[in-house]
């Protein structure tokens, strides 16, 4: 549903611009031990109504990317290069007022720990209502009624009563539902979900993911889903970006990425996963550890853990290019060949 886009030029027959577009984004953190570049040239696109999964290990830059979109980075972080466009509008140059209206308006975000994002001294209903009042300018009573409707939308049982519950009276799953209600209360076009189910039990995770899937459909939202769990993205995302050491090393349609990974890191990650239904005798571990961002290897950042690394990988930093035989992008001098026999 791309309803009501303003300013569509009459003659333009080209595809509409993506809802979210990140170009060559670089972010640095200043730390007591010097400056660290945590993102280095990240480019992404997210189409309307689609789900893009950002996958990577800790420190890979996926969460920093998400926070940059809402300009929620800590004070010690600085965007040194690149641009972020939401609906064509550059986030970096937005005035504080426009930014405030975008946050919780056009773009909303949910986090891993709903417990720490909710205020413990206010009821769930009050916190949803406050957001509604702030953004919609309705009366307290109306806001309260709409808040109950939002709680119903996120399938909280008995929402009239639950609206009066305090966060500590709610389970982890219920708290995350309240957070989703707050996030959705202003009808965002883009929901940024940073590890939204990581702190939850697996049956509750399945409930929350099903809820997000359903709401996305019904409300015509786009979803940027940040997770370390390849199983979660395989199920939820239309497209996936794989992060490694502050870079996107591969981007592809989900099905293609899982069937024919082009980057050796993606392939190695998939091989290292224990699986329920296709069990391996032994897991294929990736040797070594994720390098310190202050001491990255020359050339390709993955090369000293890569089984196919050659001389060129040590001298030349690979950029993101179309993957041979696929439709995705890969940052590797020697991408894996697409093999026959695709599901």
């Amino acid at each position, binding site marked *: 549903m791309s309803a009501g886009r303003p300013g569509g030029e009459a003659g333009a027959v080209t595809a509409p611009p993506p809802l979210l577009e990140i170009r060559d984004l670089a972010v640095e953190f200043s730390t007591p031990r010097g400056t660290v570049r945590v993102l280095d040239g990240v480019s992404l696109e997210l189409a309307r109504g689609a789900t893009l999964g950002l996958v990577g290990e800790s420190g890979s830059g996926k969460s920093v990317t998400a926070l940059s979109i809402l300009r929620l980075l800590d004070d010690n972080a600085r965007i040194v290069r690149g641009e972020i466009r939401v609906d064509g509008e550059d986030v970096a140059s937005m005035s504080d007022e426009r930014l405030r209206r975008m946050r919780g308006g056009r773009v909303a975000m949910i986090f891993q720990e709903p417990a720490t994002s909710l205020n413990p001294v206010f009821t769930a209903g009050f916190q949803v209502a406050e957001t509604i009042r702030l953004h919609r300018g309705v009366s307290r009573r109306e806001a309260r009624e709409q808040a109950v409707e939002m709680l119903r939308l996120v399938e909280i049982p008995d929402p009239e009563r639950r609206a009066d519950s305090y966060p500590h009276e709610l389970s982890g799953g219920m708290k995350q539902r309240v957070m989703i209600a707050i996030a959705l209360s202003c009808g965002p076009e883009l929901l940024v979900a940073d590890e939204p189910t990581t702190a939850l039990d697996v049956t509750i995770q399945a409930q929350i993911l099903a809820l997000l899937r359903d709401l996305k459909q019904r409300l015509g939202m786009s979803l940027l889903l940040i997770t*370390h769990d390849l199983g979660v993205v*395989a199920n939820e995302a239309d497209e996936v970006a794989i992060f490694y050491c502050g870079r996107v090393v591969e981007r592809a349609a989900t099905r293609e990425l899982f069937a024919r990974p082009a980057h050796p890191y993606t392939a190695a990650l998939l091989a290292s996963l224990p699986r*329920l239904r296709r069990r391996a005798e032994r897991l294929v571990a990736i040797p070594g550890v994720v390098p310190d961002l202050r001491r990255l290897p020359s050339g390709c950042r993955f090369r000293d853990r890569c089984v196919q690394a050659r001389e060129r990988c040590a001298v030349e930093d690979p950029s993101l290019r179309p993957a041979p035989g696929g439709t995705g992008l890969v940052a590797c001098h020697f991408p894996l060949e697409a093999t026959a026999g695709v599901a």
Partner: protein
Amino acid sequence: MGGPTRPTVAAAHDPPSQGTGAPGPDSPVLVEARHLSKSFPLRRGLFGRSGEVVHAVSDVTLDVRSGETLGVVGESGCGKSTLGRLLIRLIEPTAGEVIFDGRRLGDLPAREMRALRREMQIVFQDPYGSLEARMRVGAIVAEGIEIHRLASGAAKRERVDRLLEEVGLRPEHADRYPHEFSGGQRQRIGIARALAVGPRFLVLDEPVSALDVSVQAQVVNLLADLQARHGLTYFFVSHDLRVVAHLSHRIAVLYLGRVVELAPRDSLLATPLHPYTRALLEAVPEASPEARPAQPSVQGDPPSPVAPPSGCAFHPRCPFAEARCRVERPELLAGAGDRAVACHVFPAAP
């Protein structure tokens, strides 16, 4: 050693590198839990006790067979970590007993219990919090060796070096501090510390849960190798069914402090009987191109272990619950194929 009566769970289904054939129902039992219960007084607010208790583990009876990995899965609050701690008597049960290699732990005089500690060790989830930050790695690993007077001087030093090598570290790492290591390396240190006293039984409490995917596989493989090399018996606790399924010979499913199903890994995965086991399996997201969205097959949250529901504790969330399930608690009953289930509706086949 092998289980000739149970060909279904032999060779082809072995967890990684099982040398002598998988342990089966005929394997000797190393650890027995008999009607084991543990409750904790509940603290509410700032002022002490409310008089309520949390029933963390309730009437658990199970055997851990020598040389096997018994995986234990369940969601937070199901009692799986408490059960692991009870088995090695890190905590005392409220009721029931643990029998280790034929000896009742509750009856043992303190001195014998101390000696027996050598045989049973634990590896914790958090490689950051469980290592003493101000001790060098060598001293951390050597501590158990000193306590049990297993070696001293050069022999001790050599033993530490060997242990570090065995877990994939280098002898020179002995002189460094825990903070100098990555999460995966710290977990290797934790494993070396546990192995230092030559245990037969290891409780592995979420040993890879804090690790990144690429490092998790290294530690999982290490655990498999160590088991094969030393004939270790593992009690492997994890919330991640995928990791448990990879390493375990048998899997026990816990719900609100009770075992609801216990079966050889492959039968459990292929034909889960208890509705909760099915719900868990269906909720696991699989990383494959043909993956279908994980299904929320149960609604709602697990009830509080302070006031577990009557009858079968799962009945309020169970799509198959009958009238009987609300009043009568199903016993964990053994059936064919080395399986046991606690369910009125889907019992194990006799």
